[in-house]
């Protein structure tokens, strides 16, 4: 039986070898939640893309960064917050943020830029970003379990 409310968090060093650890954490939290099986891979992929972007761009050139992933899910929404203190990068506005990105032209040109952001926006129902100068960046990803009334 899924739990009525799932709340959990993990903090990892901003290193790509920790991506597998974050995915494993997510799978564990998702199993306890009401998220349908058809959405499991999508949510794990979106968070993996978010964390990878922070490691590669937010903490580019630094090896002392931390990333926190927080889960908060109920019967209606599966919400993930990804927090970091690296360079801010507005995921909602960056390359690939536009769902109408001309993927075919992009791919034919051999370009890989923005694919992670494209995936995040494609698979999640809500993507929000907030950043305060010199403080924490927060990326919020939401997948609806039941559409909002």
């Amino acid at each position: 039986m899924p739990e009525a409310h799932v709340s959990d968090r993990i903090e990892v060093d901003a290193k790509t070898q920790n991506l597998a650890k974050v995915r494993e954490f997510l799978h564990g939290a998702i199993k306890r939640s009401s998220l349908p099986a058809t959405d499991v891979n999508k949510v794990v992929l979106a968070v993996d893309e978010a964390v990878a972007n922070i490691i590669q761009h937010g903490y580019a050139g630094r090896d002392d960064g931390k990333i926190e992933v927080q889960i908060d899910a109920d019967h209606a929404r599966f919400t993930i917050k990804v927090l970091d203190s690296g360079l801010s990068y507005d995921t909602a506005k960056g390359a690939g943020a536009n769902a109408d990105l001309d993927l075919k032209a992009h791919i034919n040109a051999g370009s890989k830029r923005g694919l992670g952001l494209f995936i995040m926006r494609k698979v999640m129902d809500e993507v929000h970003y907030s950043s305060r100068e010199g403080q924490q960046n927060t990326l919020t990803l939401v997948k609806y379990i039941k559409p909002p009334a």
Partner: protein
Amino acid sequence: MREFEINLEPLSPEVTLIHVAGWLDAHTFEYMEQAVNNLFGEGKVRIAIDLSQVEYISSAGAGVFIGSLATAHERGGNIVLMNPTEPVKEVFDMLGLSQVFTFAQTKPAAVAALKAGK
């Protein structure tokens, strides 16, 4: 679980098959990129990639295929993908890659597709 593994198998003097297993993410994609670039460096531009043991792929992994396909085409070669798993197919469909790549189910079919040119 295997994190990531790559093995090369020559299928003909011109065609090389890369067997990939495990997770192809932002941590492991560089190994994949290196394997393909090594083949390009040897002048081998007709490459089949067996995806039947890839359990997970993110955009970093997919990006390797996108870049490799562009380079192979520039050099008169091609990349043929073999038997992607469901999670891989899902990401390829999402990114429109399923329409861009040639797929083959068997080694002879991959060799035939690669010999036919791009």
